[in-house]
């Protein structure tokens, strides 16, 4: 069998698969950001905090109400989405007519407040959340041991990502949404309730963050900073994919997960910066992003 730069193919296959798993998280999170930015023109810095909140809601459901992983997969995103709707109605909607920067500052401040509140009540060390028993264990694929839960993460994220893409690009509701972002006054005049569309979009985008949080709870430490560490990478993913491009966010998410995974084999020290290096290169060569349309 061939070897690539001294790395046996088995190892390479394993790392590709792991990259795909990480890419799943990037994809779901950057998708939420892209939906919100594409349709609302809001740079949602609270996304990481809402992802963290999703994981915490799953933990609370289990520990306070005895509700397990599977119902939490629906209930936690719902709770986070409703919270997102409250934020949109009470604060964010007042800023639509202002510059992007105001939305960014507001959501950034909200992120700090949400993280601070969780830190105050639950401390920084994190909380345990177990893998659901139906997905415990794993399979030996020959080149690596694949935990069942990680396989599920890939499947779940692909379903959610492409479901979202389909809804926005191929359905009537999606068409309204896209039309409302192009010219909201006109769509309003046709009798479509545009403010309702926008609030639902924000709710849906934040629910996606909550969903990713529940997916992450069994494998990453559930702690108040878990979103803060991830959000910057996810923003880089969105920028590389092209701000607001739904498909761009999805494909770039998976792709960068894989590139990061390979970096971990060839040059582990560089794995935390590789995404930003790519971002810089993309911005130099194609500033609108890989899948973005020139403004």
């Amino acid at each position, binding site marked *: 069998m061939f070897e690539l730069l001294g790395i046996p193919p088995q190892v390479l296959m394993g*790392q590709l698969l792991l990259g795909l798993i990480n890419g799943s998280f990037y994809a779901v999170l950057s998708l939420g950001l892209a939906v919100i930015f594409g349709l609302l023109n809001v740079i949602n810095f609270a996304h990481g905090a809402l992802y963290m909140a999703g994981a915490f809601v799953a933990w609370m459901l289990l520990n306070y109400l005895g509700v397990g992983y599977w119902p939490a997969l629906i209930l936690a995103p719902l709770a986070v989405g409703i919270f997102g709707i409250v934020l949109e109605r009470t604060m964010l909607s007042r800023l639509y007519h202002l510059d992007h920067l105001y939305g960014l500052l507001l959501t950034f401040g909200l992120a700090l407040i949400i993280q601070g509140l969780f830190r105050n009540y639950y401390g920084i060390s994190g909380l345990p959340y177990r893998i659901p028993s139906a997905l415990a264990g794993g399979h030996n694929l020959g080149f690596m041991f694949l935990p069942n839960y990680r396989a599920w993460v890939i499947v779940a994220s692909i379903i959610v990502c492409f479901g979202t893409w389909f809804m926005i690009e191929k359905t009537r509701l999606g068409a309204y949404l896209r039309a409302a972002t192009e010219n909201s006054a006109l769509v309003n005049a046709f009798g479509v309730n545009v403010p309702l569309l926008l609030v639902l979009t924000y709710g849906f985008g934040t629910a996606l963050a909550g969903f990713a949080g529940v997916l992450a709870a069994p494998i990453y430490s559930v702690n108040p900073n878990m979103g803060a560490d991830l959000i910057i990478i996810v923003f880089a993913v969105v920028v590389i994919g092209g701000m607001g491009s739904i498909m761009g966010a999805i494909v770039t998410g998976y792709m960068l997960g894989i590139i990061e995974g390979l970096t971990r084999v060839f040059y582990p020290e560089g794995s935390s910066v590789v995404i930003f290096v790519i971002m810089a290169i993309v911005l130099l060569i194609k500033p609108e992003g890989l899948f973005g349309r020139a403004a």
Partner: protein
Amino acid sequence: MIRKLALGTALGALAAGAAFAAGIDVKLGVLNDRSGVYADLSGEGSVVAARMAVEDFKAKDKGLNVEIISADHQNKPDIGSGIARKWYDAEGVNAILDVPTSSVALAVADITADANGVLLDSGAGSTALTREQCRPTTIHWTYDTAALANGTGKALTEAGGKKWFFLTADYAFGHSLEENTAKVVEANGGEVVGTVDVPFPAQDFSSFLLQAQGSGADVIGLANAGGDTVNAIKQASEFGITQAGQKLAALLFFITDVHALGVQTAQGLSLTSAFYWDQNDQTREWSKRFMDKHGAEPTMVQAGVYSATMAYLAAVEALGSADDGKAVVAKMKEMDIDDPLFGKVKVRGDGRAVHDMYLYEVKTPGDSTGEWDLYKQISSISGDDAFLPMLDECDFTKK
């Protein structure tokens, strides 16, 4: 006229009496991480511990007016240095306590020496505090990376874990912990088969764990701390690494980390600690009071803040003043300390507090009877075996 004189004398006596009752003023500053990754293992808990020390020492009855202030150094040396300078220069702080994060601790150690204050460090791990950067005003109380290596590293190598693979947090502390442990492993007939430097902080360790798995090592040494360690252990269990027979060594592991993982995931892990709440009646009694105030069991860092404060106050009482930091530290080095939490403690000439360390194993879910019933003691390591020998040039009792 006579009446006026009498009144004046009485007032004068009263004023003198008040001055006498004022006694010795001592101001302590707890400087640690109050919002970041080390906030649970030090943070407010260390302030609670320091307050308990002042109460238990009965400072008021002994004529000591102790005031405790605290601040967040955010794990940044520049911020920590700024606070330390302000405390010494403008606020009359006599001693700074805790200071986790080695880079901050080393910066504060220098400022303390310049200001002739006292640094009672409990939270930091670097051996440099009592070696390359030893100062006559530094006392390093609870643990250091060498003691951790001599505990966990030695025990696992002797138990048959000859081949080691390190996952090292890519910054000063991680490298120092790896280096210390590698030395101990090699000295005990083991070898290091590989190392990977993991960017800090990291969420996903699966790639690195897979590399460790492929290396054929007996032991995977985690030279990291806090959330990184928790994530790595959680994922090692998920990828079936521990089930397949490779052992994990969490080289720096606090009770708050074990609590965060739960015994299901953390069971069987070996770790080294200077303190565990369920060691004996005294630690249980003290920890119960701590729990009532703070809502969590104390970490070894918080227990160390308590013990160091007790010893410090005893030295100040003996000297009758807290003004000369160097003198207070010298006094502490003379004393025989018998501490309720750490047992017999001797502060060496270089400022290293020498006491027993303990090797623990995390209990199985079947053995654990409560949320915080987490450790089973495997052995105790005498202080002389745990800590590195003193460097002659750092022996300040000879100077």
